[in-house]
């Protein structure tokens, strides 16, 4: 296996770098900057049962070392994604992960099942952690019992490996992780954004039309590292780590904490080339810190 390769359920990744869900659309815009085949995988923007228009604007606000977003899962619906977006991504030599969202158990099942008949989708990321929709989503992500139920339902509905995307907006991340592992999750994806708010001084009101939004970017990296460090020691399924990654050094930190691969979100907005720049830099960072390969690093930070 080459130095950067990692094998995870359903995903034979040539490198551990993938753009995070919602931060890369369905790849079209970034394909104008570089060849998407360079990426380890691509996580598509969330898919819901039918088309969603999302929240009112403003939907984003900058914060110190990060940003708040309240997009509200705007997407054309799972059928349109399968018909128009997956075939585009199939042109590239990279793995495709579908992000599955919903407001009800039935909607999650429906979306997951729809991806079964789709060649070129290699795994599902079960989004039970979007803080920006009123109904559903987040309550599945904050209650271990609900999380287990939606995981079981999606596992039943799908032939594909399921990575459950955890919300950091909980006091006990470990019980969430264990609950979905016991329910049959093939992997974890963590973390989603942390709920936050910004007040706009001229108006005296919350800046985002949705009032609250999800905090992402470098500001949340220590939270992600801590959660992955805690969870990776207690579960035996692999973790796709994310939260504030902007450099190859950040990637190394996530791998040391116990992630097996990583996703890069917000950093794409600042630098559209960030994913490929990290991939190019990774071998140098590995050798700088004395590692042979990616698999050589995974979890090294937690073993005594």
């Amino acid at each position: 296996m080459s130095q950067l390769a990692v094998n995870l359920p359903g995903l034979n990744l040539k490198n551990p770098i993938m753009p995070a869900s919602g931060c890369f659309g369905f790849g079209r815009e970034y394909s104008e900057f570089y060849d998407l085949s360079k990426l380890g995988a691509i996580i598509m923007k969330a898919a819901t049962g039918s088309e969603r228009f999302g929240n009112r604007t403003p939907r984003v606000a900058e914060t110190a070392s990060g940003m708040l977003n309240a997009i509200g899962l705007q997407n054309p619906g799972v059928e349109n994604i399968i018909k128009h977006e997956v075939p585009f991504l199939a042109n590239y030599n990279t793995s495709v992960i579908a992000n599955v969202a919903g407001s009800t158990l039935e909607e999650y099942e429906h979306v997951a099942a729809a991806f079964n008949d789709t060649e070129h989708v290699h795994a599902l990321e079960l989004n039970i952690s979007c803080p920006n929709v009123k109904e559903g989503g987040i309550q599945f992500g904050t209650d271990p019992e609900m999380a287990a139920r939606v995981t079981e339902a999606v596992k039943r509905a799908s032939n594909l490996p399921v990575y459950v995307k955890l919300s950091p907006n909980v006091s006990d991340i470990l019980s969430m992780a264990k609950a979905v592992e016991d329910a049959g999750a093939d992997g974890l994806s963590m973390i989603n954004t942390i709920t936050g708010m910004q007040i706009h001084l001229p108006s005296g009101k919350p800046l985002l039309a949705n009032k609250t939004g999800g905090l992402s970017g470098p500001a949340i990296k220590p939270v992600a590292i801590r959660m992955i460090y805690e969870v990776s020691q207690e579960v035996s399924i692999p973790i796709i780590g994310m939260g504030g990654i902007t450099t190859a050094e950040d990637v190394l930190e996530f791998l040391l904490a116990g992630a097996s691969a990583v996703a890069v979100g917000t950093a794409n907005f600042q630098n559209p080339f960030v994913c490929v720049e990290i991939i190019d830099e990774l071998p140098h960072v590995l050798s700088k810190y004395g590692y042979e390969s990616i698999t050589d690093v995974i979890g090294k930070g937690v073993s005594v």
Partner: protein
Amino acid sequence: MINKEQVTILSSKTIALDTFEMVLNNHYISQHAKPGQFLHIYVEGHTLRRPISIANVDPEQETITVLFKRMGAGTQKIATYQPGMVLDVLGPSGNGFYIDSNDSTVLLIGGGIGVPPLYFLGKTLAKQGRKIISVLGFQSKQHVFYEQEFKALGETIIVTNDGSFGEQGFVTDVMDSLGQYDCYYSCGPLPMLQAITAIVPNQKGYISLEERMGCGVGACFACVIPTADEAGYRKICKDGPVFSAKEVTL
């Protein structure tokens, strides 16, 4: 096509209250930018880039002029940048103004920091021999800029909210007295655009919209505007920022 480019600041100066003019040097953008497009500027220490309209381009000198207002932390920082510094920008971004070759008289209606993209447009249209009428609205005398530049293109009416310069009122107060025109182009605060599209609902016109952006390339769905058609929305950064006045729901 949008490129990630390095641009060098040639000059930067204050042209009105809290309003700055920066002249940049870059080959690619100066050869490809069209009126209505913007630059997405990286600001050191900030997560998100700042979209700033292109106010003028000189392809021979390979320069791009941008005007911006010092408002938040990002534009505050850009205002401190000195000539010789190199900026990282994405551009030229978005779609420019649609120009109908049959139009002979066009009306430009700008409000505040919405005025700059209309200058690049006006200059381009004037060069093509069209008659230009400009109505520019500002808060007060201190905020007025580019009066002479627009006058060089054609009849120009300046309006200030407090009456300290030009006519007193809003741009919409003088629109009745302008006579015939084939098409209008407008950029400015949302209430101004709403007022204009309500006053002349049947007039052919194009508006340029501003919104807080995330990626600026059409991937993140931060800056969308509802439409009445089947699609239901447009992305301001990618499908716009210029739209036909009838296309979007303000």
